[in-house]
């Protein structure tokens, strides 16, 4: 079994879902208008990812190759729906802030990608750690995007005003185009440092 710390570092940095693998872009671009939104979406995705990875890994020897994708989708959709029910019933406050994003998790290809690329080929413990690593990596990516967009677009960080009122806000950054600008610039910066390190 691979080293758990290595799996977590792999998800967080080496194969970061947002900046390196560039998957799950729809929620990444859509919900990161503020840091809280980005982190909330990241953590709910991480919870589903860990559960889905565990179950796919446990079932990997039972699932025939030909129908693996429909099986994975059933497992993922079931978890998302169960989490939605439980949040609605027992944690209404959390549901009020995350409820909008939960149905979006079903269509996040990050979860299907990890089921296909990792959990269906590795044991349950390694798959859980892969889920934790990838989930945290996704949260990190969305959190950073949200922070930058919220700071430039609204002048706040975690809803606390940090820029003086007189400083102009670039509202474009909390709208859809701002998501592309921010993601592009962050990826360019990361690639620059990575290439420099290599050289």
């Amino acid at each position: 079994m691979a080293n758990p710390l290595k799996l977590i570092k792999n998800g967080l940095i080496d194969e970061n879902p947002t900046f390196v693998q560039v998957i799950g872009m729809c929620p990444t671009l859509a919900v990161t208008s503020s840091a809280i939104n980005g982190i909330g979406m990241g953590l709910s995705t991480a919870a589903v990812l860990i559960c889905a990875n565990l179950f796919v890994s446990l079932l990997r020897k039972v699932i025939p190759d030909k129908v693996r994708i429909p099986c994975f989708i059933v497992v993922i959709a079931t978890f998302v729906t169960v989490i939605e029910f439980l949040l609605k019933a027992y944690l209404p406050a959390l549901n009020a802030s995350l409820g909008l994003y939960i149905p979006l998790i079903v269509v996040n290809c990050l979860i299907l990608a990890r089921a296909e690329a990792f959990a269906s080929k590795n044991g349950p413990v390694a798959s859980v750690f892969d889920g934790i690593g990838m989930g945290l990596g996704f949260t990190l990516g969305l959190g950073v995007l949200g922070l930058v967009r919220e700071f430039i677009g609204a002048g706040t960080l975690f809803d606390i005003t940090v820029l003086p009122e007189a400083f102009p806000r670039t509202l474009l950054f909390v709208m859809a185009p701002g998501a592309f600008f921010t993601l592009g610039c962050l990826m360019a910066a990361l690639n620059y440092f990575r290439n420099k390190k290599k050289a």
Partner: protein
Amino acid sequence: MNTKEVIKPAVVLLIIASVAAAALGAVQSITAEPIKIQEEQTRAASMKAVMPDASNFEEITDVELTGSLTAIYKADNGGFVVTAAPGGFGGAVDTMVGIDAEGVITGLRVTKHAETPGLGAKATEPDFYEQFTGKSGTLAVTKDGGEIVPITSSTITSRAVASGANEALEWFAANGGAY
């Protein structure tokens, strides 16, 4: 083609889907009651928020709901709480309006919406919804010559909320006396 190769995957998929369906059914039946209670509590809390002077609300069932109106409640102080679901930027914007016996808005809240986070979603903030309190007649956003200051860059959402409030006021003007 080997029949076993076709049947086995189909059976496994059927079993997995059935187990998932059974699990979902179980969770749904367990959580249905708590979810209903939560929803009722949320609704009772927002009714109290839009009409602080009343303590009991009763739904009027024998009423024709026109336009985007979704429900009408009679309050024990002679006013009404009207819910409407006007179309916003990202779907219906569920709006709850309290109207007192004189036809003045006692409060307004956006209870459910799918507007853009950071923009239209600001309709749930007091800076926006408190503008409606104490208003009557026909409301419009400043761009349309009214006095409701719209949320920056979210005129569509702001117009939707104003139209929900107008529908509620119109219903009251036409039918309020009958109940």
